[in-house]
């Protein structure tokens, strides 16, 4: 007659095996999800850069686009400080730099002038956006790959 304990141990081993595999799958799926979210925010930052350059190089001041830039940059910065992107712990200086380079100068009707493509403002926007994207990608690879 088969020992009932042998049967129980077998089932226990099966359950433990399933639990370990299931947990590993969940962790892998969650990490994949986080990577996708971080890729999306990088795309959003690139879109912000495009919108900011379009705004600053436009021939005339556009109040709606100016307001949109403020909200776009706000949403990006808030998302980068909340879960799960907050886990990346992007330095505040990178976030401040993005907002400042996008919305400090040439953003209001009273001081707007159409910027040439090679102006300092355009150069600074490109740098701030690119540096932030690189920072996100580097940190993502380090902690979520």
């Amino acid at each position, binding site marked *: 007659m088969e020992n009932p304990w042998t049967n129980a141990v077998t089932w226990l081993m099966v359950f433990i095996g399933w639990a370990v595999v299931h947990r590993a799958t969940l962790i892998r799926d969650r990490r994949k999800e986080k990577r996708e979210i971080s890729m999306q925010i990088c795309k959003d930052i690139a879109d912000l850069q495009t919108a900011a350059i379009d705004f600053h190089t436009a021939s005339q001041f556009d109040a709606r686009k100016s*307001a949109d830039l*403020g*909200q776009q940059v*706000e949403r990006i910065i*808030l998302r980068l400080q909340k879960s799960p992107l907050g886990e990346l712990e992007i330095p505040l200086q990178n976030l*401040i730099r993005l*907002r400042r380079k996008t*919305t400090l100068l040439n953003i209001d*009707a*009273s001081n707007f002038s159409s910027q040439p493509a090679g102006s300092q403002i355009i150069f600074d926007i490109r740098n701030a956006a690119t540096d932030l994207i690189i920072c996100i990608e580097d940190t993502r690879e380090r902690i979520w790959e």
Partner: protein
Amino acid sequence: MKINLGKQFGRYPAGRYLADGPFNGQKFREEFLIPALKGPDDEIEIDLSDARGLKSSFLEESFGGLVRAGYEADELIRRFKFISRDPSLVEEILEYIRNQDQDF
């Protein structure tokens, strides 16, 4: 003394000067911040939570403008207490107070 930017001034503050619209930084500084600084309360709580889409030009004109108007950075940093969901906003404002002429 408490100032709720989004509720008392404007939900979408924007612009640097009076010519930039009704909820600009110069107006916020002159009608809210300076009167609060001249008031009897030592601590001034500034709640940024209900304002949306804050741009650097508004922040710089509001707070960096106080230093240009003659207020000491140390006094402003000591008296202002900020409330915000976004720590980067508070840090940026403090930078404008400390180095008000850096970028602008």
